[in-house]
C-alpha cells in the first residue's frame, strides 16, 4: 500500500520534470551545448578563463555595455587580491561630487565603485548605436533561457546573410538572435585582445572566456551556493535516514498489532 503510493509520487515527479523539459524545449531554439566549467552540481568557475573573459569585457564589450550591478571589489571572487583591485579600479575615472564648492569632480576609481558605464543614459546609448540599446550585462546569462550556451552561440553566430535576406543599414545578420537581425556588430574577432596570460585569442576562446566571466557576474554566489548545498544535503540525507529508523522503531509495536 505505502509502496504503491511512493511509486505514484515518484512517477508524478518524473512526469512533472518531463513536462517542464518539454515546455522549455518546445518554446526555445536549441543552442549547441558547450562543456562549461561551471555546469553541474560540482561545477566551479574556471578562474583563469573568467579573468581572461573580464579582459575581453573590459577591452571590447565595455565600449557599449555597462555592468552596473558589479563593483570592482566583487572581482575578488575571480581571484584578484586587494592590491590588484586597488590598482585595477584606479585605472578608471569616476565622476564624483558634489565637493564643498558644489562642483562635480573626476577622481580615480576605488574598489567600492560600481563598474563605469559607457553612456550616461539610455538615450545616449541608443544615439550611439543606431537606435539599438546595448543592455546591461550584469545578469545577462540568467536573463536568457539556457543563457551560457545562448551567449556563446550568439557571439559566434555572425554569418553571411542568405541572398534573399534583406539586411538593413546598421543591422547585422546573426543566426541565433531572435529574428536574425541584431543591432550589435560582430564584437569578437581573432586576436581582438592580447591575453595577459599568453593564451591564443581565437574567436572561440574569447567567446568562451567572456561567457564564463558573464556567467560568474550573473551568479557570483554560485560556488558558495553549491558547496553549502553539498553540506546541507549530506546532512539532510543522514538526518532522513536516522528519522526513518527512529520511526520504524517507534511504530514497530503498532505495526505488529495490525
Amino acid at each position, binding site marked *: 500500500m505505502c509502496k504503491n503510493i511512493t511509486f505514484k509520487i515518484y512517477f508524478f515527479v518524473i512526469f512533472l520534470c518531463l*513536462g517542464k523539459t518539454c515546455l522549455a524545449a518546445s518554446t526555445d531554439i536549441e543552442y549547441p551545448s558547450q562543456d562549461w566549467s561551471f555546469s553541474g552540481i560540482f561545477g566551479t568557475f574556471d578562474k583563469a578563463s573568467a579573468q581572461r573573459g573580464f579582459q575581453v569585457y573590459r577591452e571590447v564589450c565595455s565600449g557599449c555595455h555597462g555592468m552596473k550591478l558589479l563593483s570592482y571589489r*566583487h572581482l575578488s571572487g575571480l581571484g584578484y587580491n586587494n592590491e590588484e583591485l586597488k590598482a585595477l579600479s584606479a585605472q578608471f575615472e569616476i565622476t564624483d561630487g558634489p565637493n564643498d564648492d558644489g562642483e562635480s569632480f573626476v577622481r580615480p576609481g576605488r574598489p567600492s565603485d560600481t563598474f563605469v558605464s559607457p553612456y550616461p543614459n539610455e538615450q545616449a546609448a541608443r544615439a550611439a548605436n543606431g537606435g539599438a540599446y546595448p543592455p546591461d550585462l550584469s545578469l545577462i546569462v540568467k536573463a536568457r533561457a539556457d543563457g551560457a550556451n545562448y551567449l556563446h552561440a550568439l557571439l559566434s553566430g555572425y554569418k553571411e546573410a542568405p541572398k534573399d535576406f534583406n539586411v538593413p543599414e546598421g543591422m547585422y545578420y546573426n543566426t541565433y538572435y531572435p529574428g536574425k537581425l541584431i543591432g550589435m556588430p560582430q564584437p569578437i574577432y581573432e586576436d581582438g585582445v592580447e591575453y595577459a596570460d599568453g593564451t591564443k585569442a581565437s574567436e572561440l576562446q574569447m567567446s568562451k572566456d567572456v561567457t564564463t566571466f558573464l556567467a560568474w557576474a550573473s551568479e557570483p554566489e554560485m560556488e558558495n551556493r553549491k558547496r553549502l548545498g553539498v553540506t546541507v*544535503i549530506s546532512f539532510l540525507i543522514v538526518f532522513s535516514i536516522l528519522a526513518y529508523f527512529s520511526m520504524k522503531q*517507534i*511504530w514497530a509495536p503498532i505495526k505488529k498489532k*495490525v
Partner: protein
Amino acid sequence: MSKNKSKNSVVEWIDYRLPIFTFLNHELNEYPTPKNLNYFWNFGSLAGITLVVMIITGIVLSMNYTAHVDYAFDSVERIMRDVNHGWLLRYIHMNGASFFFIVVYIHIFRGLYYGSYKAPREILWILGVLILLLMMATAFMGYVLPWGQMSFWGATVITNLFSAVPLVGESIVTWLWGGFSVDNPTLNRFFSLHYLLPFLIVGLVILHLVALHRFGSNNPIGIDAKGKQDTIPFHPYYTIKDLFGLSVFATIFAAAVFFFPNFMGHPDNYIPANAMQTPAHIVPEWYFLPFYAILRAIPDKLGGVLFMFGAIAVLFILPWLDKSPIRSSQFRPIYKLFFWILVFDCILLGYLGAKPAEGIYVLLSRVATGYYFFHFIILLPLLPNIEKTRPLPISISEPILSSSSFSTAAAVREKK
C-alpha cells in the same frame, strides 16, 4: 487536566490559571489519530512548516528590500550579491513559494481522493479553499516585488482582468493600480498586502486546525474511528512520522534551492521592468497555469474571468456536489477512475497555460476546461446513482475481513 500532572511546580502554577500546557498536551501529544494514515497525511504539517519558513525569510528580506520602482530590482540584486547569505534567503523564499504550492496541491488532491471534504468536515475544507485563495493573492503580489519584466507584465495582465466587470470595470482597475498604469503606487500597496496576507493565512490555518481537531483526521479507508483500538496518540507516532516526512521534503527543497534555484522561474524576470517593451510570451508562475488556461479558453473576457474564479468556487460547494456517503476512493471504483482523469486534466490545463493561445491549444484548453467543470458539477452529483461501491470494512483495526462479514459491514453502513 488531571492526566497532565506536571512535575514542575511553575508549570503547574501557570497551567492552573492559564491551561495552555493542558491544551498543548491535549492537541499535540495525546490527540487521538487514526492509526492507518499514509504518507499523504504528511502534507498538512509540511504546508504549515513551509508557511512559517516563508514568513521568516520574508521578514528578513523585507529588511533589505526597497519598494520603489527605481530601486526594487536593484535592491533584490543587492540582497543576492552583498547581503550576507542574502542569495540563500531569497532563493529559499522564491523556491519556497513553488514548494508551498506543490505541497498544498498534493494536500488538496489527497482530500479529493479520500473524500476528506465530506460531513462533518465541510467547514474544515472551506477554510482550506480560503487559504488557497489567500496564498494565490500573496504569491501573485510577491512575484511583482522584484520588479522584473514578468513581475510588471504579469501584474498588468492580471489586474487588467478586473476591467471585464461591467460598468465599473475601468474604475476598479484604476483604483487597484492607484493610477493609470501599474506603477509605484501599485508596487507599494502590493508590498504592504504581501506582508499582511500571510498573517491572515496564519489566522485561517489556526481555524483550520480547530476544525480538524473537532473530529480528527480522516484516513485512507474513510470510515470514522470507532474507539480506542482504532487510534493512537499523535505523539510520538505522528510527530516522528512528520519529522521523517519533513526531512525528506527538506532534502528535495534544498536540492532545488542550492542546485536549481531558477528552474521554476522565468529568465525574463532578471530583466528590469520596462513598460515600453512587452515580452514575447507573458506567462504566470507555474502554479497559476491551469487557471490561466481556463481564463484564456473562454473567448469572452468577462466569461474567462468568471470561469477562472468559478474553478475555485466549485471547490467551496464540493461537499454538497458529491452526494456519495462513501468517503474513500478505495471503495468507489468509478470515482477513483475519474479522480485520476481529473488529475490528468489539471496537469493538461497547466501545460496548456504555458502555451501560446493559438491553434490546437485553444481547442484543447476548451475541452479540458469543460471537463474540469463537468467533473464537479455533473459527474459528482450523478455518480452515486450508477456507481456500485465496494463493501466497507467494519473498522480501521479490522480492514481485512472474510467476504461474508464484508456485506454485513456494508449493510450496517448503508443503514446509517
